[in-house]
Structure formats: C-alpha cells, structure tokens
C-alpha cells in the first residue's frame, strides 16, 4: 500500500511533487550506491514518515532484503550490509554503538572458530561475514552524534552520512517535518530546531521559488526569519560562484509559487490545542491517535475479525470521501455519510435501468470508482458510529465538552468538575488540559485553589508530576491569578470573535471545536480578510516588537511576480502558514474552511514541525520515564 500523496492535483503548489520526488530519489540513490543486498534499520520515529516518501515494494527493488526497527536489542542477520536510517539523537547513537560492538564480538568469535578449523573453511567465507555498517542521519549529521560515535569507539567502523529528508508532504496542502520534539526542546531552552526549520524552509524555497514575503509573529518566528536571511546571503554567494559553470535552474530563477510564508509560534496560542478537537479528523486524533497520516484501529471498530494486528487506515486526500468529511464537525458526519450512502446505492441502482451495451460499458467504467467510494464509505461509517457512540454515551466526555465551553465562553471556572476528574482518576492529560485551560482563559487561578489542585494531582498521579506542573508553569500555561492584563484571553475573545454557538448554521471555522474557533486561525483570518477593523494596536500590544514582514524579493523577482500575477489573475496567492512547535488537525481544518471563503484573496497551505494535540503538549511537559 502506497501512502504517497497524490500531488498532481492542480490546486497544490506545482513544484511540491518535484520537491518530494527529489527527496525520494535521494534515498533511492543512497540505496543503489550500496550495491549489495542490505538490511535497513529504521528509527521507529521515521518508519511512518518514510512510507510517505517511498513504499516497501520499491525498497525491495533496491535490494533491501530485510527491514528492522531500531531498538537497543541487537538483531541477527546474515546480510553483510546494514544501513541505519535514524534521527540524530544521543539514544539512537548509543543503540547503534551497541549493535556494532555486538556484531564485532560475534564476528571475532566466528573468525576464531573459523581459524581453528582452517582446513575445512577457506578465507573467503571468513571475509564475507564482515559487516559493513552505514549510518545515515536524517536530516543531518550533528556534531554531538559524530562525537558520541567517536566516544563509543565505532566511528571508524561505520560509514557516516546524511539523508536530507526534512519537509514531508502529509497531504497536498500540509508539509510536516515529522519532528515531534521541538516543543519539548523549546521548553528546555534548546532552540536548535529553529535552525533546522530554517534550513528546511530554505530548501523548500529552492524548489518552489523564494517567497517574496516572510511574515512573522513571535520571537521564535523572528529568529527563523533572521536565519533564513543569513542562509539566503550565503546561498547567493554559492549561486554566483556556480553561475558560470552551469546556467541551470537556481532558486532565484524559479518564479515564486508561494507568495508568502507566515511563521507562527505555537506558544502564541497554547489555548487552542488544549481544547478538545471536534472536527472529524481532529476527533480521530484525540480518540485513537493519528501517527503520520495513518490511523491504527482495533479491527473490532471496523466490524472486522480480530487478527491481533491493528487495522491501518491512511487518512489523506487520496481518499476522496475522507477529503470531503475530514473538516466537518463530528456531529455532521453521520447525516453526511448516510446521504452519501444513498448516493452510492443510487449509483449501483443505475444498473437496473441499463439497456444498451454502451450504457453497460459506461456503467462498468464508473463501477471502479463506486466500489472505491463504497469501501471508504463503509470504513468511515463504522468509525463514525464508534465516535458517535462515545460522544453520546460517555458521561465524562459530555461534561468535559460542556465545562470547556463554559470556561471559554463565559470565562467562568468549573472547578468542581475538575476536582471530580481528579477524584475519578481520569487520564492525567485530560486533567491538566482542563487545568491549563482554566488558567489561560481566566488569566490565572487563585493561589490557594492552584495549590490545592497541584497537591491533589501530585497525590493522585504521583510525585513525578511536580516536574510536569513546574514545566507548565514555565510555559505560562499555569499561573497564579494576577490583575487584568491586556494580553489576556478575554481580550482575544472580544477582538477576534472566538465564540459562535450557531456554528452549524454558519459553516464557519467555529465548528472545529463546536463553538470555539482557534485563536491562531482567527488571527490569520483577521490578517488577510479585508475587514474594516484595525487590529494593529491590538497586535502590537501582544507581540510588541516580535512581529513584522520581511520582503526578500529582489527587483527582478518582483517583476517576475507581477508577470506571474498577470498570468494567473484568477489564481489566489498561496500563503504557507508555518507553525513552529506543532499544529492541530482542527487548526488545519479551520484553514481549509477559510480557503473556501470568498472574502480572502489568498489560499493557505500548512507547514509544521509536527501535528500536535493537547495530550501531546502535556506529555511533552511531563518527565520522560522511558528514556534510558
């Protein structure tokens, strides 16, 4: 099953396919440069993202005979060429070092036994056992990893190289770095990922053209703009040196296909991910967890026999039906699907009225599409049923949704419910999400109350959450209440119309949280919609000097731009909204809904470090216990 997104769609950025294929080709070149049957050892964190770049059948074609997931346990194989494809983390390096020490030990013992029965076995087989280890770090070799391999004494016995896979098309309008650690790193003060984000954006622009404008909100966004400018300067230097040697396509030659990159720092809006997502795709992520566009479900939910293995369902726009329903509010899914079911049945029923051979031929032509839709429909019907059952019957869920909305709409606390959640020992993430939501929306929690909750949480869930709570405090997600602040949620709520209870009627972006619209997306809407309201002062108070626009086009680029603008006057400009620290499915859905609005003369596509949700954010703030 190929998970690669179909990027031939006209509405996507034209060169995105070129960009993706380039990254695919780089991997295949790496594999074909090692001209022998090989074992591929994948970092589990990369296994899913890679399926979006290349499928297993192609890997087989390139002589990948065995696939392993990297773990600290060494594996046994008769293959002599082992290719590690891993993220540059310290723990991965330790694992690889362990594997290599292990295989060397085995090898030396083999050599010794061989030596003792030298008569029977020749030298040749002896040599064949020697393993060649290739370590490809994705997307770059880092100083630390190199040093770590050196300290472990294996640097000499591996061939160290890099595979520059960074932005992966999760869909025709979503690009992700599949790098889930950036939020946690920011928390620890480690801003390295800003550099990697910049490099990825820089590379992307060499395929889709230099975006004429960079717009940034938040200090991290500002840093990225600065790094991008620096990279661009360096690049110009290399470019001019290449100019004579080959007058081929350099990035400045490509007409910009993205008119603007908008950089948004997740920390600007920490409220929205805490609110439970209620768009279809968002809900699936909240309930079952979507990893790199793949949903893994218990077969029971799909009315299929249990096999012990989970059913893998790719969620992307290749599935046309899913593309239609992913952004809808979960309550709309049922009715929509039954309408769709009638349509499809109607399609099948056509066969009853077929008379001529020609009609039959036309019908069989349609049949394939119908069957595809049919199978997708039955999948989503089963899932929708499961979701609906959960939404209707789970008392806690129902009350949770209500209290969220109370906090967000009326800015009134629901402490009793919060308390009860703790007493019922609801998942810690659920509890902390609601606690943080209180603190953020109400501009803090009274000191005594806060201490009470903190104590209750630590006594209930364990002492280690002293660290979690402290991290949340550091991020400002939990704080003691202070006086009124201009930068408070109530201000946002008023300025940006965050609440709309009539969301089903109005088809607006409020539907993604059943009444609440994400601040992040509302801000974007305000920026691009031609409204009379002036947000300048408001934005100024919030971002102070960390927002602005940087125009990075040179003179002739502008001309190019005008030219291309004239060519496709009907086409909307594309804005890449890049979320630093993660974006939720609801936010993506909201942007898609905005794209259908007539008041906007731009079209958004999404870039992100990773796809996040409230649980993931809380987990990023918790002390890792599994790391060794």
């Amino acid at each position: 099953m190929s998970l690669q997104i179909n990027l031939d769609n006209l509405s996507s950025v034209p060169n995105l396919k070129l960009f993706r294929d380039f990254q695919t080709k780089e991997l295949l070149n790496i594999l074909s440069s090692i001209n022998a049957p090989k074992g591929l050892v994948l970092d589990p964190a990369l296994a899913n993202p890679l399926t979006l770049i290349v499928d297993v059948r192609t890997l087989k074609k390139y002589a990948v005979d065995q696939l392993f997931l990297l773990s600290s346990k060494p594996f046994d194989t008769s293959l002599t060429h082992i290719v590690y494809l891993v993220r540059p983390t310290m723990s991965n390096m330790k694992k690889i070092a362990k594997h290599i020490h292990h295989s060397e030990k085995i090898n030396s013992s083999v050599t010794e036994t061989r030596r003792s029965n030298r008569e029977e076995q020749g030298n040749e087989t002896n040599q064949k056992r020697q393993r060649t280890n290739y370590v490809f770090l994705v997307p770059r070799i880092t100083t630390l990893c190199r040093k770590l391999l050196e300290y472990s004494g294996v640097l000499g016995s591996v061939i160290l190289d890099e595979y520059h896979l960074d932005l992966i098309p999760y869909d025709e309008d979503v690009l992700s770095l599949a790098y889930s650690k950036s939020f946690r790193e920011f928390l620890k003060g480690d801003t390295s990922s800003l550099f990697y984000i910049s490099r990825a954006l820089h590379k992307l622009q060499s395929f889709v053209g230099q975006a004429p404008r960079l717009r940034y909100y938040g200090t991290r966004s500002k840093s990225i703009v600065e790094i991008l400018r620096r990279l661009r300067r360096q690049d110009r230097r290399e470019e001019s040196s290449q100019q004579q040697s080959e007058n081929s396509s350099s990035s400045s030659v490509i007409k910009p296909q993205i008119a603007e990159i908008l950089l948004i720092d997740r920390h600007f809006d920490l409220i929205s991910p805490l609110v439970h997502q209620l768009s279809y795709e968002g809900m699936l992520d909240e309930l079952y967890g979507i990893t790199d566009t793949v949903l893994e479900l218990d077969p029971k939910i799909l009315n299929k026999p249990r096999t012990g293995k989970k059913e893998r369902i790719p969620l992307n726009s290749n599935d046309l039906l899913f593309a239609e329903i992913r952004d809808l509010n979960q309550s709309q899914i049922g009715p929509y699907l039954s309408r769709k079911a009638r349509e499809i049945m109607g399609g099948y029923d056509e066969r009853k009225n077929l008379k001529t051979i020609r009609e039959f031929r036309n019908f069989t032509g349609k049949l394939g599409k119908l069957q595809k839709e049919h199978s997708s429909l039955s999948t989503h019907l089963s899932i929708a049923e499961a979701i609906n059952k959960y939404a209707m019957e789970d008392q806690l869920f129902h009350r949770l949704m209500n209290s969220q909305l109370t906090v967000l709409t009326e800015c009134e606390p629901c402490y009793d419910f919060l308390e009860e959640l703790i007493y019922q020992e609801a998942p810690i993430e659920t509890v902390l999400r609601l606690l943080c939501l209180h603190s953020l929306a109400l501009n803090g929690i009274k000191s005594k109350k806060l201490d009470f909750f903190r104590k209750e949480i630590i006594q209930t869930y364990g002492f280690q959450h002293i660290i979690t709570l402290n991290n949340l405090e550091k991020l400002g997600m939990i704080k003691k209440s202070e006086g009124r602040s201009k930068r408070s949620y109530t201000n946002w709520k008023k300025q940006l119309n965050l609440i709309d209870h009539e969301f089903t009627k109005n088809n607006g972006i409020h539907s993604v949280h059943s009444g609440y619209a994400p601040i992040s997306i509302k801000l974007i809407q305000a920026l691009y919609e031609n409204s009379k309201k002036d947000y300048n002062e408001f934005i100024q108070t919030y971002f102070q000097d960390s927002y602005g626009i940087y125009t990075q086009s040179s003179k002739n680029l502008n001309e190019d731009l005008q030219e291309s603008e004239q060519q496709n006057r009907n086409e909307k400009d594309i804005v890449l909204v890049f979320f630093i620290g993660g974006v939720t499915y609801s936010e993506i859905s909201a942007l898609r809904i905005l794209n259908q609005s007539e008041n906007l003369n731009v079209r958004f596509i999404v870039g992100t470090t990773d796809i996040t949700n409230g649980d993931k954010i809380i987990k990023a703030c918790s002390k890792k216990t599994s790391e060794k």
Partner: protein
Amino acid sequence: MENPSVHWNQFDRYYYQKRLVFHMGWNEINLDHYLIESAPFGGLIALLRDDQKIINIKNIQTNKNCIFIYTCSGKLISKLDYGDKQRVKAFGWTLDEKLIIVYDDCEIVVFDIFGEKIKTKCITSRDSTVHLVYKAKVWHNGAVILTKKNRLFIVENLSQPRFEEYSVPENLGIVSDLEILQPKFSLTGHTEVFISNLAKNLFIIDNDQTLEIEFEEMITNLKVSPTGRLLAYYTETGNLHVISTDFKSHFLEFQMNSKIKPKQIAWCSSDTVLLNFEKKNTLLMVAPSQSFLKYEYDEPLYLMTEEDGIRILTNSCCEFLSKVPEVVVNIFGIGSTSFSSLLYDASQSYEKESSKGDEVIRSKMDLLPKAITDCITASSWVFQRDLQKKLLNAAAIGKSYLDNFVHDIFADMCKDLRVLNEVRGWEIGMPLTYRQFEKIGIDLLIERLINRKHHYVALKICEYLRIRKDRVLVRWACEKVKSETESDEQILKSIISKLGKEENVSFASIASVAYSESKNDLAIKLLDYEKSASEQVPLLINMKNPGLALIKAIECANPDLIYLVLLYLLNTLDINENSLFQILSHKDMAINLLIKYCKHKNKDLLYRLYSQLKREPKEVGLLKITESLSDKINLEMKLKIRNESLIAFGVSKNNFLKKITEDNIKLVKLQQDYQQRLELVFIGLSINQTTAKLLELDLEKEAKKMKKTFKIPNDRYWWIKLRALAKKHRWKKMYAWAKNEKSPIGYEPFVEICIKNRVGNEALNYIPLVKDPYNQVKFYLRLNKFEQAADIAIKEKNQNLLQHVKSLAPKNLNIPSHI
C-alpha cells in the same frame, strides 16, 4: 606578406612546420651542462646542474643545491634550493606547475615554484633501513622508484601520496632504461613499469604480475607515446622500433645502423618519433612509413613531447614543431581550391576595396558556413597575431552573408585567442597551442598564472571571460598577508578595498594564512569579513579563540557549530572551569545547549553551572528532583538527593514545593515499611495508589493513617475506597459502608461502578439513594428496569419523563401512559 606555406616541410603525407616561439631571455645557459625537465602544455623549465659534466661556472658556490626555474621564454622565475642533505635523483612537474623531486633516500617532495614544500612523502619501512634510489622517474601525478636493493615503489596520486610496492623479478640485473605507462592508459588501471636491462630483457611490471620478453639486442631507450598506445624503443645496434603498449602489434622498424645512443627519444603527435642525437647535433624525425627528415643544429637540444607536437629547446631559442592541420593546408596550400581558401582570398580583396570577392562568395553560398568555421579553426592554429586577424576577418566577412550563422563560435574564438596571445607573450612565456589550451582548460591555466604570482593577469582573464575570480583574489590576498614590509593595517586595508565588495570570497582561507604567518590580530580582523560561520568557527577554534568562535556560532544560530565550540571547551585541559563560565556568560543559547549536554554526560558540572549562573535555588531544587526520579539510582540515593532539594526549596521560601517533597519523603519511608512488612511492592506508587492498595488488602487502619498523614480530602478518600472495593468485588462490604456512612460524593459513583463491573443487581441497591430523580430514571433505564423508572417518573409527576420511559420500554411491559 608571404604565404605561410613557405615555412612548411612536406614529410610523409603531411606538412610540418617548425615555428620559432621565443628567443631565450637567459644568458650563458648551456643546456649541455644541465639535466632538464619541462612541464607539459608549454610549462616551466627546470634546470639542474648535471654533476657528471665538468664545467666551469663562476658562481658555482652560490648556486649550489639549486634548481633553476625558467619560463619557456628563458625568464628566470626562481632558484629553488632543494637542500644540501640529499641528492636529487629525479624531478618533474605536476600539471599546475609544482615541482616534484625524488631524492636519493626515496623521499618525494612536491615544491611550489618558490621553494615552499607542499607535500612530503617518504618510504617508511619497519626495520628503518634507508632505501636508496637506483632509478626513478616522475610523471605529472606520480613517481616510480627502483631502489638499489631492487625494490620497486609506485606513487600514483600526489595529492594523497601513498606508496605501493610491485614485486621485482630476481633477474633484473643492470637497468638500461625505465619507462612508465600512466594508470589512465593501462588496461588494469594501475601504473605499468617498463624496464629494460643489459641482459637484453624487457620487463613489464604491474601490481600483480611481471611479464618478461627477451630481445635479440639490448634496448637503450624507451618512450611511450603521448596517448599511451605506442611504445618506441631504440636498440644498441641502432634500430628504432614502434610497437603497441599491449605488445600485440609491431608498427615500425627503422635501421639507423649507428651505435650512438640518442640522448632522447620523443614523439611528435602520436605517429612520428624524434631522435635527439646530441653528439651529432642532429634531430631525426621518423615517420611510420620509414621516411625521415633531418634537422641540423649547432647547439644542444632538449625535446619536450606535447599533445599535438614537440617543443624544442636550445640555448638560444624555443621552437615548436607540429603537423600543419588540414584546414590550414586547405587555406594556404599552394594551388588550394577549397572554398575556405577562396573566402580568405576574397576577404583580402575586400581589403583592397575590390568587388571581386563579393562575386566569389556569392558563387557557392552553400559551402560558406563550412568555409567560415574553417577560417575560424585555422586562426586557432596560427601564432602570429596579424595572420589570426586576417583569418578571423575572412570569417567575419563570410558571416555577414549569412543570417543564421551561430555567432558563438566566432566570439568564443576571439576571446580565447586574446587570452592565448596574452600568455604566449614573452613576459608569461607559456607557448600554449589552442589544442593544448582546450585540453588543460581555463581553470588549470588560471591556477598556473596564480602559482606564478601573475595575479593581475589572471584576474583580468577571469573578468574578460566572466568566470569566477574569487579564487584569484583570495590567492592574491593570501600572498598579500605574507607581506613583511606592510603593517597589518595596510594589508587589511588593501585587501578589503579589493575584496570587500566581492560576494563569494572565502575570507576564512585568507585568515588561516594570516594565522599560520603568526599574524593573529590580522587573522581575526579578516575573519570578521567571512560570511559563512561554518568556516569562521572551526578556524577560530584552531586559533584557540573559543570565545569569539562561540559568539560567531551563536550569531548564525547553528547548534552544531555551538556544540563544536562547547565540546572543544570541555575537552581542552588548559581551559579551566572559570574561564569556561566566563566565556559562556550571557550566552543563553549556548548555556541551554550545555545544560542539555550535561544532563546526559556531566551532572556535577551542571550544578556548578547553575550556581555560577546564579540560577534560583528553586531551579536547583527541581533539578535535584529530576535527578532523583531517574531509575538508574537506588532508593537511598533518591532520598538523599530529595533531602538536598529540600534545602534549596527552603532557601527559596517555596513552601509548596517543600511540603510536597517532604510528603514524598514521608511516603517513601512509609512505603519502605509496608514493603518490608507485607512483602509487596509499594515503592513508586502515588499516595492514591498506596492508599488504594492498602484498602484492597483490607488494611483500613493503615489507609486511614495515610488519609490523616497526607490530609486526603474525604471526597477523594471515598472515591479511592470505592474503586478499591469494586476492584476486589467486595460488594457486600461496599453496601454496608454506604449504609453506615453518608457518602460525601453522592451515590451515582456507586451505581456507575457497579454497572461498569456488570453487577446490575448491586447497582439497584444504590439507585434509591441517588438524589436526583432524573439520574435515577437514567440509571434504571440503563439497567432495563423500565417499571422502576416509570415509578420514579410518576412519583415526580413528570409526564414527559414517563413518556420517554414508555417509548423505550418493550411493548409487553405494562407501563402506564399517564400519571
């Protein structure tokens, strides 16, 4: 102007021309007294005094141990001092004009032309015996050494020299000549060595085998052709043979019947062999057809085989002998009727303002394009500028008759010729032909000019041809930096004035020269102009200036570069912690990365760092807590560290954290106690879990103690107990509890937990206790107790509710429809 063809000699089926290139600018040089090697492609000439010749030179003392380096025009470039410890056994040139010297002790050194050692390689043997050179030969990218103990060593790549040893046949004997077939020409891709000996053998040796051929007479000279396909050899009885280098075909046998051994054999193109008979001062040219041509000289000669001809050097001049190409013959040949010749003549008549040319050109328009390209090609062959001009002019006139002629080849030729004429001048003295120029390429030509310090010419050529000039500028600046007469200020100023505005100049490489010249300040100032931090940082580290390196690394926000500096700081012993902290102060990004690193690698440093940074005691406390949560340390240690954190929290007056931690320590102690008494695992459980476990074990008293110690609210305690009882299915006990005490959490949780555990009957016990009648109805409905539900609705006088119940109930049940 005379027709160029008057200088041609017809030979074999072709015309040859010997062109005078330079009158030598040197004085009193007698080639006879020197061993000579010249770089191919019109390159430099190296002269080493031949110490087997007894001569009388006035300044013999001062020029001892010197190799003289001249241009082809006889202009002295330098006197290269090769040292007085070793003797030179062989020397030669790389393509970019670096001098390769093989010394008698098997050391190979590559010098630049001003005497600076660039690479040195010596054969190292385990028993530290010195190998002495018997014969050696150098080619442009390697060398072959035969030692006196008959060991044969090959070096193939001088940029990364490595010796390879070939095995030598035992019967090698006394060697008469040694020749090399370069790896790019050999079938195996390895260097092949041809050795002839006095015992009339020829050995062909490569990396894994030796071929031995016996001849009837002794071979005195061996020479491989420029394309590597043919081998010419000369025998003691005066026979010249040409065979293929794979020894399969024999092309020529030419009998001189002279026992005089030629000083040199050389090739002109790949088909004609030249013999230099020094003693007779004659140069004999022999063609494949056995026809020959003799040139007489009255002075000694040196022959240098080129790709497309031969360079002849004498005391007084430098000449170039080559075949006249067909296009040129077609134009200038006597009685030539080719259209290119007509075009050329027509252009001449244009000059005389005659209209005859026009008719001629119009007569055969279809042949015109080829005639034009022929004129252009011919212009590339001739050396005289006025003749070049005339040919190009002919092409230009022809071109004007055509609308669609591709202009490029004409323009390119004009440019190339201008460059060639410049380097062919006496000053530079590099007699490159156009063919040779095509072969070595502009890059190598520029490199040669830079090596000869002709920076200005190189720069002008780059600008003229519009190719990148940063290399020239950087190399110029590197020379400038070495200047001893100017102050650092002056040097910097003149470098910046010339390079400051260039986009793509590597200031790091200039700075690194300054550093190696011990001009540190200048180096740092130069580095400031470097735009790429990834070049700045490593150099600054090299220069032992980690502080500045760190600043630059942070500027570009590249974490890798920051780590590079940090790891240097941590691993360099002469940097103590205080200066580490000093360097780090106020550099948050670096500090955070160091903290991250320390958490994995160096916890002690972390605490010292925290105290140095004056981090809040609260932070230190939390760091301790984090450390204590690691599963790598034992319980005793954990408690110890947690106790330490208490101090930190105390200092920071953080009562909440202190209390929580104290509670935890208390908890762990209790758990230790339980663990011992009950032989069950308690450590690691939360207060809730501990209490629950005690309740599950029926240790109500202990659980109550937990409640009291940790001030567990009553509500929460009820929830804990409820779950514990349900888990152990103690339904009776639960009911008794509910009856005896009034639940502070209501009875809904009781019902829920029973439903969840599928004990519906138990649940029924609690529904009447539920306060909210609406909830009661809901529970009854969930348990399918429709009658009870209806009763409640009736009791509540809620018609709607009753209706709802009825609608859900099975039809056969008798549910009243009205209250």
